[in-house]
């Protein structure tokens, strides 16, 4: 079973999102990036699958910026192989374009399964796993929280719906899966281990051309207008606690002794 895990980096929300307020354009070069948290979950589920059934795991990222550390970290955690797709790309590359490039590579490589994060914080034009599945014309399920091998080489999934309903799904490969959460919290790879891997293992680089496809002209980003913004309670912990007690009293929410 050959499993591809698609990884991407997204702006770090701990830092400020840098926006040119006048033009509404994001200043991609001025932001710092982190691996998308859902992709981390997808990688973890792939590594669990590897431990359970010997799947071979390849982590793949499009070179929209510095993705090497993300790929070396995937190796340090247990991926068998990592691939960076290079080209005339930058951090403003749309999901549609990234999905095109990724699906072209996956199609050539005879993977049985593609896992990726069910969503990312910057998916304006669609989520990577669904787009990749659409381009490949493979079956796809999103919001998946478990991937296992069943009998007869079939793949078993658990898909979640609102209200806590869960479906058990069986599918023959190839398939694309949007992972919401792995069965266990993502494992940790120490900086030292990532460094060590970076010295001893190479990232395979594959070049790709600029993908065609519909693109939205003039997407403008704006900060949300603080319509119903919270009234901020100022002061230290004691002052805040006193005020909250007062608010609860005003709303008749204090517990009667």
């Amino acid at each position, binding site marked *: 079973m050959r499993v591809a895990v698609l990884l991407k980096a997204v702006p770090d929300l701990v830092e400020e999102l840098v926006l040119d307020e006048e033009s509404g354009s994001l200043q991609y070069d001025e932001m710092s990036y982190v691996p998308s948290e859902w992709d981390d*979950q997808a990688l973890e589920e792939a590594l669990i699958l590897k431990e359970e059934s010997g799947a071979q795991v390849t982590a793949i990222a499009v070179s929209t910026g510095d993705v090497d550390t993300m790929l070396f970290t995937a190796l340090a955690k247990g991926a068998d192989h990592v691939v960076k797709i290079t080209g005339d790309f930058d951090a403003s590359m749309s999901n549609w374009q990234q999905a095109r490039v990724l699906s072209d590579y996956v199609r050539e490589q005879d993977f049985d399964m593609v896992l990726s994060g069910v969503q990312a914080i910057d998916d*304006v034009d669609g989520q990577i796993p669904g787009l990749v599945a659409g381009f*490949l014309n493979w079956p796809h399920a999103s919001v998946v929280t478990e991937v296992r091998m069943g009998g007869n080489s079939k793949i078993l999934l658990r898909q979640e719906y609102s209200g806590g*309903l869960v479906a058990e799904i069986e599918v023959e490969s190839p398939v694309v899966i949007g992972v919401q959460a792995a069965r266990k919290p993502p494992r940790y790879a120490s900086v030292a281990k990532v460094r060590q891997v970076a010295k001893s293992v190479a990232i395979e680089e594959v070049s790709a051309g600029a993908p065609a496809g519909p693109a939205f002209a003039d997407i403008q980003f704006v900060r949300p207008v603080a319509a119903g913004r919270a009234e*901020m309670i100022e002061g230290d912990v004691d002052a805040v606690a006193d005020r909250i007690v007062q608010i609860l009293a005003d709303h008749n929410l204090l517990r009667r002794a």
Partner: protein
Amino acid sequence: MGPILIVTESTASGITDSTKECVGKAKELAKVLGTSTVALGFGPGAADRLRRLDVNKVIAAEDGDFAVYNPAVCENALVQVVTETAPFLTMIPNTTMGLDLGAGLAGRNNIPLIAYCSDLQEQDGKITAVSQVFAGKLLARVPVPGDGAIVTVLPGSWSAGEEAGDPVVETLSGDYSSRMRVIRVIEPEKGDVDITKADILISVGRGIESPDNLPLADELAEAMGGVVSCSRPVVDAGWLPKARQVGKSGQTVKPKLYLACGISGAPEHLQGMRDADLIIAVNTDEEASIMEAAHFGTTVDMLDLMPVLAERLRGG
């Protein structure tokens, strides 16, 4: 111009609110744009459920393969309907179904997709979609191309279209089978407490930092006469059971008080709690999205505040 197609969703209690919200908005836009509305529904009884919607036409996919929701089968049917009806807009609620079908349809039919849409605004016959991205920290204003687009719509974006209509009803027949098969659908496990029935919820997010800090939330809940709930990351980390999760893939709650501690307020979470009577948010980031939904907010550290507040409520 092609029609506006709404991909509808139903649960055991009927057509979902997010579907009705799309229907209401679609009708408003169709009137301005001079086009019609079509609702597509899946599953047994879809024709009967959908014929009450205020749309011009209903397409029901009821038989055989549609006995239970199967993402690949429904996508096959949707691809055919979109190919045949060439809608200007295809609106899909951003639930598991929307995440399944939206991007898949976009890729297969080469139609651009606008995700996490919270509004569709018309001006001079042109439509601009407003999307909530970066965990609600930014809105993207995306002009809908002249050839149209698919939009996946966040629940709660508009008021529900409740008017009754008299649509033409068609049923879909054909082979939409897939290599994907749904074995069974499992009802949620009943937890030790039902958070949907609680008047007071002390809800913890990533800010709880460690399971070792959960007793602070338990003690505060006890002092307030409430129950501890949480956001998704706390469940994914295995710190609290799934039955305690508030949000899109958890429970929808409407307590008298929702005290959100260390919760950033991603759209998926807000979806499950924004109708609480009183929301107080504790988050060290004043810019966190939860502050948009909350009535009161504070940036003190939740781990410092919880024991002090519990002490005050105990009369200390």
